[in-house]
């Protein structure tokens, strides 16, 4: 099974050219931080409520990306809430999470890493999808949950929170489908407490950016 970070990165990729889809400002880092916390929660290593995030089992999961964050939370003094941990991980670990998750997808044969130069100087790395089954399955799960009234699986609920937070639903759905699924998205986005905090953190940073833009001097 893919980790949340691997799955959300896969959904963020443009299948054809292997570049990342445009996402909300700063959202990707918050979403990756939340993805790791979700993986730790689903592995019964951490638990959360509206006030705190606690380690309930510090046994390593065997996944270096998750264990690094688990070790850091277990070794911290005092308690923080989920939002504070999302912000801390966002500031310190998300580049490592991103590169390890992409490396894992390449190792699994889902993506290919392709280094290229443009303008003869600048290097860029693209990740074309070479085995589309995993991504198709992930998209089908998201669409299946959003277009039905059935009680969703907790893992799918968490995934929808991440997909919504980084603003890529428009890449999975047509405009008409999004309109149809809007009430369901609204219903499910809050159902996982960690996913809810990721969405809140992204919304807050977007509000700050908008306020800064509104109050910026105009020349």
């Amino acid at each position, binding site marked *: 099974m893919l980790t949340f970070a691997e799955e959300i990165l896969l959904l963020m990729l443009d299948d054809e050219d292997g570049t990342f889809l445009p996402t909300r400002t700063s959202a990707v880092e918050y979403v990756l931080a939340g993805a790791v916390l979700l993986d730790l*929660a*689903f592995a*019964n290593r*951490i*638990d*959360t*409520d*509206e006030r705190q995030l*606690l380690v*309930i089992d510090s046994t390593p999961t065997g996944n270096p990306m998750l264990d690094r964050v688990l070790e850091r939370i277990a070794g911290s003094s005092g308690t923080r809430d989920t939002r504070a941990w999302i912000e801390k991980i966002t500031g310190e670990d998300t580049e490592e999470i991103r590169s390890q998750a992409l490396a894992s997808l390449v190792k699994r044969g889902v993506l290919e890493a392709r280094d290229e130069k443009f303008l003869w100087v600048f290097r860029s790395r693209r990740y074309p999808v070479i085995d589309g089954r995993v991504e198709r399955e992930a998209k089908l799960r998201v669409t299946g949950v959003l277009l039905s009234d*059935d*009680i*969703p*699986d*907790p893992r799918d*609920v968490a995934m929808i929170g991440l997909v919504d937070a980084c603003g890529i639903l428009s890449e999975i759905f047509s405009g008409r489908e999004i309109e149809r699924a809007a009430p369901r998205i609204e*219903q*499910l986005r*809050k*159902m*996982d*407490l*960690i996913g*809810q905090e990721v969405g809140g953190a992204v919304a807050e940073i977007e509000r700050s950016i908008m306020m800064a833009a509104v109050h910026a001097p105009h020349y």
Partner: protein
Amino acid sequence: MEMEEEKSGSLSIVSLIGRIDGLVAPEVEQRLSSIIDRGDTHVVLDCGRMSYISSAGLRAVLASARKCQQAGGKLSLCALQPSCKTVLEISGFLTIISSYDTRDAAVSAES
């Protein structure tokens, strides 16, 4: 945490007692899963003595409600304490899982 189970007609009424957190949520989910697997797919969770529910507890309830629905039944909640009710409201759970003020109301509506 303790769980008590009793029958009322075709309903299985399961009382959750104490804190439902990450330490006990897997056991709660596993025990509810056993109840559903033996064919008791109409379940009322009596939360009158449930003092706390964390995100892991919410996932256990959601997974069990899903399993009931997939088996052709239904999981409902009753007698939620105010602090737990607030958590379930904030997370939108009460828009997809029926909740009743009292056990009698749940039995009457779900029987």
